[in-house]
């Protein structure tokens, strides 16, 4: 399993039609924090170095959008939470997690595991700010591509 270098982009699929992006009047298309939401608080991404066709590899449907974040950006997220008066600092990193149908699969995980939802929610906000569009969702592709 190869190391994930800091310069490696990580791709994340952005679903169409579920409110995961917002075009603004200034011409930008904002990414919802919920585009990175994950029930297990370990958002899935695809390693670009293992995606033979670039970001389109991460589309499950041609209507999907795809955003990217650099592994170094993920590692630069400094999250912490306070629970019962104790401050917990988290190291956020991306770990290879190849699946039978997706050898590029990786997960963004904290160490230790999040003690509160608050910390994870802020990580989602940071990821949304770090993310850049690779492929716009179909709904807006003709306008922004």
């Amino acid at each position: 399993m190869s190391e994930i270098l800091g310069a490696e982009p990580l791709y994340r699929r952005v679903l169409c039609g579920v409110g995961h992006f917002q075009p603004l009047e200034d011409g930008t298309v904002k990414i919802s924090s919920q585009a990175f939401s994950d029930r297990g608080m370990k958002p899935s991404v695809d390693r670009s170095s293992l995606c033979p066709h670039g970001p389109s590899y991460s589309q499950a449907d041609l209507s999907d959008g795809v955003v990217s974040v650099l592994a170094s950006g993920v590692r630069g997220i400094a999250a912490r939470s306070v629970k019962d008066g104790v401050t917990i600092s988290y190291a956020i990193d991306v770990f290879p997690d190849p699946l039978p149908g997706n050898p590029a699969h990786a997960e963004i995980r904290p160490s230790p595991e999040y003690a509160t939802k608050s910390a994870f929610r802020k990580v989602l906000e940071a990821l949304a700010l770090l993310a850049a569009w690779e492929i716009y969702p179909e709904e807006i592709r003709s306008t922004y591509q």
Partner: protein
Amino acid sequence: MMTRAAEKREVRCYSGAATGLTEETLNFAHFRAVTSASGSASHDLDDGSIRRDAVDWAVTQLCIGTVDWAQIPLRPGDATLRQIRSLSRRASNWDTHGAVAVDSGGIENAQSWLRKAIEAVGEKQWAEPLVTASADGDVVLEWWGAGQKKLTIYVAAQLVEYVRVWGKDIHEEMDDGQVEDPASFVSLWQWLHGG
């Protein structure tokens, strides 16, 4: 989401018994009817009740072609309320990453909270949020302000929480907490739209 044209067609099929119409369409007809009849937008029509006389009036006006509903502007919050209601259609795993179905209590609370928030902020100042759900089933509302200012509201059945963002640094440029009442939301709103 049903388009206005589709709603219009559906209401044209209405024969007085209200069978075959979705609740959403009837609410829509009710809203249009009362706002058209009264000429004002002061009615609260999202309480789930349907006034039959209002629907009858709406259908009549449509049939005789005196009302073009598409020309009547929506009230502030109407689009958001409909989007919140539509979250109930999201079944488990709607995000393909194992999300739970959106909590019905959260949807009800979000509708109620939204009305109070609009009233507190003022209809003229109101801006519609991006509406979605979290993987945990909360209703999520997001607004973007100037620069990197952003406000995210999470609504569960018994709890409304916020995350406020003005940069990527979690320690220095984000905070969060509970939205205790409409007044506390006003201060968040003023922060988002302030200089």
